[in-house]
């Protein structure tokens, strides 16, 4: 956990320092949206504070979001539970995904690409290696990313109390949309 955060931070910092010569894109506008579709309750929440970078020459990337920035719960109490009981955002304030694009494609040209990103997904302090499929729309000096994937709570040691078992899905659907601009 700590290591990956350090890595992301380093990446973010280095990316900034390397200046304009490097083809590094920053998220200018990113939303991450999740949906838990349990038999008794549908919970959705979203955050507009998705941060991240993509280096199209190295095909590396790093994304991060603060857990506290998620809004849109069914009630303020639910948000509190989300942060305190499940995500333990005090202890694990962020979720991140960083790694490398598998496909050997040239992202310096405009076009729509479906690529798979292989990296470590860190949620609730637990890192899982994942392959996540996403669509990149490269246009001029901006990239629009959209992706859908699922997260298993069990994969990240997020325990569901028995009492809310029917209210919380074990598989959370996540949708990410972000536009990136050349740094």
């Amino acid at each position: 956990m700590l290591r990956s955060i350090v890595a992301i931070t380093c990446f973010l910092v280095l990316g900034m320092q390397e200046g304009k010569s490097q083809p590094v894109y920053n998220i200018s506008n990113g939303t991450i949206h999740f949906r838990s579709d349990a038999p008794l309750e549908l919970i959705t929440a979203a955050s507009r504070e998705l941060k991240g970078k993509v280096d199209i020459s190295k095909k590396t990337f790093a994304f991060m979001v603060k857990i506290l920035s998620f809004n849109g719960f069914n009630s303020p109490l639910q948000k509190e539970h989300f942060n305190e009981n499940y995500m333990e955002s005090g202890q694990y304030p962020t979720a991140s995904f960083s790694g490398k694009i598998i496909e050997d494609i040239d992202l310096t040209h405009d076009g729509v690409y479906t690529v798979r990103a292989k990296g470590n997904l860190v949620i609730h302090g637990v890192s899982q290696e994942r392959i996540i499929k996403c669509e990149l729309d490269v246009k001029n000096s901006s990239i629009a990313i959209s992706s859908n994937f699922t997260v298993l709570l069990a994969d990240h040691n997020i325990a569901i109390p028995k009492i809310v078992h029917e209210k919380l899905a074990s598989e959370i659907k996540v949708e990410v949309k972000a536009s990136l601009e050349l740094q």
Partner: protein
Amino acid sequence: MRNHAIRFIVTIYCICIAHTIAAQSPGYKSFRIEKENRFVQINCLLKDYNGYLFVGTDDGIYTFDGDKFNRIPFEDNNKTDTVTALFRDGEGILWAGFLNGKIARLRHKSLQYFEPEEGHPQQKIAAFLNDGSHKTWFASNGEGLYYYANNRVNLINSDDGLSDDHVSCLQLSAKGDVLAGTDQGINICSIQQNKKLVRTIGPAQGLPDYIVTSIAAAGNDRYWVGTQEKGFCFYDHVSGKITIPAVSANWNYGQVNSILQDQQLVWIATQDSGLLRYSIATATIERVHLNVNDRHISCLLRDNQGNIWLRSENGLIRTSGDILRLMPLPGTPAFEHVHVLLSDNKGHTWFNNEQNELIKTIQVNDNITGRKIQLPGLTEKTDITSLYQDVNGNIWVGTMGRGIFLLSPESLAYRSFDEHPRFINASVLSINGSGRNVFVSCLEGSMEIQLPETSDIHQRYTYTDFDGKKIGTNYVYCIYKDSKGRTWFATDGKGLTLMQQSHYSYYTQPLLKDDRIYSITEDKQGNIWFSTANAGIYKYDGHTFFNYGTNEGLSDLNISVLRTDWLGHIVIVHKKGLDILDPVSGNITYITGNQGIAYINAEDLGAVSKDTAGNILVSTRNGVLTYTAPENVLEKPTALIESVQLFLADIDTATQHRFRSDENNFTFNFTGLYYTAPDQVYYKYKLEGLDSNWIITRDRSKTFPRLAPGKYVFRIQAALNKNFINASEALYAFEIKQSFYKTYWFIGGCILLAALLIYWYFKSREKELKRIERLRQEKIQFQFEVLRNQVNPHFLFNSFNTLISTIEDDPKNAAEYATQLSDFFRNVVNQRDKDIISLKDEINSLHTYFYLQQKRYGSNLKCEINISDVQQETYMIPPLTLQLLVENAVKHNAVSKETPLLISLFISDEKYLDISNNINPKINKAGGAGMGLQNIINRYRLLTDTPVKVYNDQEYFIVSLPLLR
């Protein structure tokens, strides 16, 4: 006795005939897939668990049954993709990997794309593997190694320590590690506690080449590894040691595409040099000659019959592997002139040519040369009849008319065997032996020769004569000493003679069908087998002789030689091929023309040889054919039901077993997998529940239209040449349910219903009869009542009084009155028998009655009838009803000037006929006790459901009669 004891010193003139083996491998057959007249390229092969072959091509997957290719459709019928890898996982699911990185699985007879959330690889899928722990691995040519577990696709690539992302082959080690061949050596991968462990074996560890192209199991966790340019090597996964065979040191066969170990042989498919055969025992390699066009070959696999399959740029290729090998003879003598054949203990093949010179072949790599040995006195006309190598290694040469020569195979020194003058120009029929005994059968007599301890041919040998008279003849084709020490003689015309401790037994006709015995052999169970001139072969188990002919599965009765191969099977040599009989199972397999062999020399008994390894050699038109019995093979076809169709639409045989009564048209498509000779497969089927007998066919499909409801089992057996002993069987059990109207519950229900109906009918009829009876009784009662009333003395008395007074006062009217009275009684009499009459008739008779009564009561009795003519015509009424009611009214009421009686009739609600009268009760009540009214009520009850209503409020008395129609 010219050359009687002269010993020939080596005077050989030796000509070396260089000869390159160029013949096609026997059993070679190529199969092409063509679609719309276009050749479909094959990329990969798979042998299924039941032996079925799957072929991955540029146009999806085809199955191959030995005869035809059948394409497996994609779920989207128009779709096709280039298949580059095929795999059957532990759960029985067929996986296909494509050139574009996609993956599909076979579901319900069609290919469905595998679409995990993570997407599919973008690079060619090179291989699949299942590690036995529910992980399916797939190698990508460019992206690394994927594994699929718990619905998640994971990737191991160079970021995880994989030496290279170009993975071309996978192999599972005995420990469960995955060996992945890459362009940078072998990677040993495993997942332990969610951690990817990767270890690389490259040139630093002793691998001869960076690029690994194939890995094949060699047993005991050891593997053959094929490389791109440095041949192949041997990797021991236990010790980690890599051994490079000597033949790989100067490898010039190009890239190894595929490796397959089959017993003591390793087959190597190369990119440029065709198929190679590496012998582990001798560490030598040789090229297997396929078609000259088959250069780029790969995908080796062995089928259940031991054939080796591969793909080349020309399609799918079958070779007989090591089962059949063909060696052209130097000088290419016509095969019918090759009378003798011997494979010696050094692997040299000896034979005679047209000039009856003896030739010893010497093979160096792909070149075969022959050394001619000219034996004295032998010409074109003096045949060499037999060759035998004894335990000392010396070769015995039997001739026709020139006696026996003894020859040292290395030095080629020889001498005439002249231990007795009669040997010198003897005509030898056969030379045979067992251990230190050599048996020679000549027309001059047969003898047993004791071999000396040394291999020096020049010493004198001792011998014992057999008594020709005791054998029965001197014409003995074969003398055979069996494992029990018994000596058998195959004679021409005198049957089989057995010599056991100087005691002779004879087996001739009629015990045997033919007395000409050609060849004798013994199986591993100690049974004696012998062939006859034209009655097939016999097995003698010590008690009984069993004859095998064409009915028992032999393909020809003209058998020359029998030999027992190294597996203990009996090899039966005839002109058209070899029949191979397994004495234990009774299965017979065949090597025939479809294996590419033709014209076997089955005339000369000496033209069949058995080498030291137990392989059988025969002389054919294309050279010497060596048959090596394959181990671990299925000697019979595998019967399979390929599909079952209901009205020509496939059904799922795993789940569908019960059908409706109208689902009754079944087609069974079946096959007997036997890739060696699909044309020899016969089928025998039976539909239990319909057929009681088996039906033999060569068709591979059978339709049963309009099957009656019932339980059925379709059984199919497949066998070679109708030899159905121990044939493999496949079956499909199903049931056609009865039509609902034939089911027991339905029939039972119907019977019950019918019984109820009949019961109800009888019950109601009985009720009806009772009703009629009651009606009759009521009517009689009623008539009685009416008549009684009419003949009531009061009535008559009153009527007569009235009549008398009328006669006095008004004689005219008296006649009228008498007429009315008479009419009244006639009406009563006429109508009494009828059940109902019209209301009009009843009212008419009521008028008559009134006329009579009014004469008596005058205007004190009034009657109003408010019923229209139409109503009077429409409605019916039981006769005399109204009259009785009016009578009652008159009877029970006082009629006087002060209390007139008004009777009115009217119809109320179109339902009732009401008869009402005002009540002036008499002081002395009249008798009768209402019998009349009760009678009416009873009669009406029998005629209608609507009851008669009686209303009495002390002022009016109303009777409502239901109107009848």
